[in-house]
């Protein structure tokens, strides 16, 4: 069989104030950053120029369904809406996350006639109690298939403060998707050397920060203690996975006395715990190298097609698997996502 699961789609509000319909009166008049109000916005807009119109790109379910399912040949799409960055008032941020979740259910998941959209429970990790409450509130919704957090954080996600959140997600069988959540909030500079001076300098580097989350999740023992915990790094950056995991394996060998709970090579945690979504910035520029390149660190088992629709860097399924062999294509286009989310289990059963 062959099918396509798009594991990374960002639906948007039709207009900025729409979120206020989903906030309680206590929060309706608070200052909330606009969808594209972020320091590192792409010049001329973050989204595909051809999609700007009456509302924001990606804001009309029927249009999105037409683009993804009819034109793009996608069978299922995992919707992972952005919130508004890590803002100072973490309690307000939790209300924003809840409003986004209510909107997603109300506008996208409940009325969906196609049955092909799945959703993400957005939470704010800076508010651990609020995150736990939000996961409990929505985990049983049949169309919610993962928990979503920003890539931006002031502590890496391996730190113990976050453990109750990951434990709850794993307990409900929900992967945790990490995605750049552009905001105008309280974040550190986006590169290791400080602020970027150009948009490409920001956009090319930012997804690579996910490695710090990954390294700390492994070394702090989060995957060891939670066998069902899965992380999805939805902005790509997997090209750096091989060299950096090689280093983590090498240094772990020397340092493992300090973290005795990590009882195997760090890279051995990848197959059971880590997935990446494809991105337009990963992969060798020479497509003839793509197949072999994917084999390093066995990335074909870790990768799921993600379009990033409606982002300017939206990638088609064909572009995402250019140069790969048929086995790799199958894994990347749907099998890995199907295994992770179980969304296509019924379809798969009828077709294989």
């Amino acid at each position: 069989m062959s099918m396509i699961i798009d594991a990374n789609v960002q639906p948007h509000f039709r207009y900025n104030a729409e979120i206020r319909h989903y906030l309680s009166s206590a929060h309706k008049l608070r200052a909330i950053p606009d969808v594209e109000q972020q320091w590192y916005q792409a010049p001329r807009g973050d989204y595909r120029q051809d999609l700007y119109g009456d509302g924001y790109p990606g804001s009309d379910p029927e249009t999105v369904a037409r683009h993804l399912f009819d034109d793009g040949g996608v069978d299922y799409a995992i919707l992972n809406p952005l919130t508004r960055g890590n803002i100072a008032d973490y309690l307000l941020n939790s209300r924003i996350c809840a409003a986004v979740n209510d909107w997603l259910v109300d506008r996208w998941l409940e009325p969906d006639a196609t049955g092909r959209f799945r959703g993400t429970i957005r939470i704010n990790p800076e508010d651990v109690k609020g995150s736990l409450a939000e996961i409990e509130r929505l985990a049983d919704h049949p169309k919610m298939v993962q928990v979503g957090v920003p890539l931006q954080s002031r502590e890496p996600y391996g730190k113990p403060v976050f453990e109750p959140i990951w434990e709850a997600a794993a307990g409900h069988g929900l992967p945790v998707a990490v995605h750049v959540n552009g905001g105008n909030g309280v974040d550190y500079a986006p590169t290791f050397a400080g602020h970027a001076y150009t948009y490409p300098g920001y956009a090319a580097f930012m997804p690579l920060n996910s490695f710090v989350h990954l390294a700390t999740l492994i070394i702090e023992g989060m995957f060891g203690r939670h066998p069902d915990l899965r992380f999805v790094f939805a902005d790509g950056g997997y090209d750096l996975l091989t060299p950096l995991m090689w280093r983590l394996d090498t240094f772990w060998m020397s340092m493992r006395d300090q973290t005795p709970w990590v009882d195997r090579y760090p890279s051995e945690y990848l197959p059971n715990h880590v997935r990446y979504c494809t991105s337009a910035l990963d992969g060798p520029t020479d497509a003839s190298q793509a197949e072999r390149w994917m084999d390093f660190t066995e990335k074909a088992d870790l990768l799921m097609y993600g379009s990033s629709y409606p982002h300017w860097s939206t990638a088609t399924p064909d572009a995402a698997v250019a140069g790969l062999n048929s086995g790799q294509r199958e894994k990347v286009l749907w099998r890995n996502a199907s295994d992770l989310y179980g969304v296509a289990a019924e379809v798969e059963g009828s077709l294989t």
Partner: protein
Amino acid sequence: MTTTERRQEHIAQDIAVTIVDTDVHPLPVSGDVLKSYAPAAWKDKLWPIGNAVSSTSHFYDTPDSYKTMSLRVDASPPGGGAAGSDPDFAGKQLLIDAGVSIAVLEPMCDAQLPEAEHVLKATYNDWLADVWLGDNNWHGRWRGAISVTAQDPAQAAREIERWAGHPYMAEVLMTPQTRGIPFGSPHFDPLYEAAARNGLPVATHLMGQTPFELIPIYPVGNPSHWHDFFASWPLLYVSHLMSLVFDGAFDRHPELRVVFVEGGFTWAMPVMSRMDRIWEQRKADLPHVRRKPSDYVREHVRFTTQPLEEVNVAVYREYIEMMDLGDSIMFSTDYPHWSYDAPDWAIRRFPADQRERIMRGNATALYGLPSTVKALPGERPVAGDAAV
């Protein structure tokens, strides 16, 4: 036996340069020796350790660091002093026993305030020139780095000029821990301009782990342990490299060469393709970047090898072959630090057709090194291609 006696006694043969080590760390034999090179007004200001007994604190500690201070325990000179403090003993271990032909010495030092950083580095330069690059370099096997402040690039430029023309100062050394200023910033232009004018590459190497402001703030917060901290460390070099290209430093300084030391090199190809991809798609945002980003990297940037990742050798070789960066990689040992890579261990990890360039050729071309050097007493000449 004094250096003079030895020089008279030994009629040195010339031997071929086969291995250049681009990352070696000399240490002063004591704080007092170093202080003797400092300006009088600074003698008691540069080492503000108060009542602390140990002069180095590490936020991220290496194995058994209380005992080892991150140094090879077998590299302590028999006559006393820390590993890397005795040029003769380092010469025996690194040049004779390990077979290194020429080694580039990169002292590690850092200070908090801009003026102190400059004075400390100038002090190290005077010490290095005297103790390692003077009479003890009768064999010409040591090369030195001109340590400069990154906080005050105009001061750094003057320090570069002070040493330009020295026969054994081969490069400029600056910290990558630049307090939030990426390498492509015009802030560094005076430093780069002076280095390029004098044909000196600018090398960068992890410096002190103290004070805390010198540890880069990782964008999503800092790990707790050395292994996740240091496995992520290459991303600091990735950040600086992207800035150098995207912020136009190589266009402003066509002769500038940058050497990324001890931060890995297997990430280079994926980072180059990443930069090429976004440049292709967003050229309008980068009007000043006139060439493909990877072209700048191949022309202007070198990476040193240590610490090599411990990977299946065949897989590793294949990966390096695919990277096709045989002109950009230079061998290094990190002697006398604990994670030392021996030349004969490292060489077989490189693809056969890249070995000569990685072990010798790229460094001799970059630093303008000779093809032969004097043999040390007890050192047997080897055939020119024996190491390869």
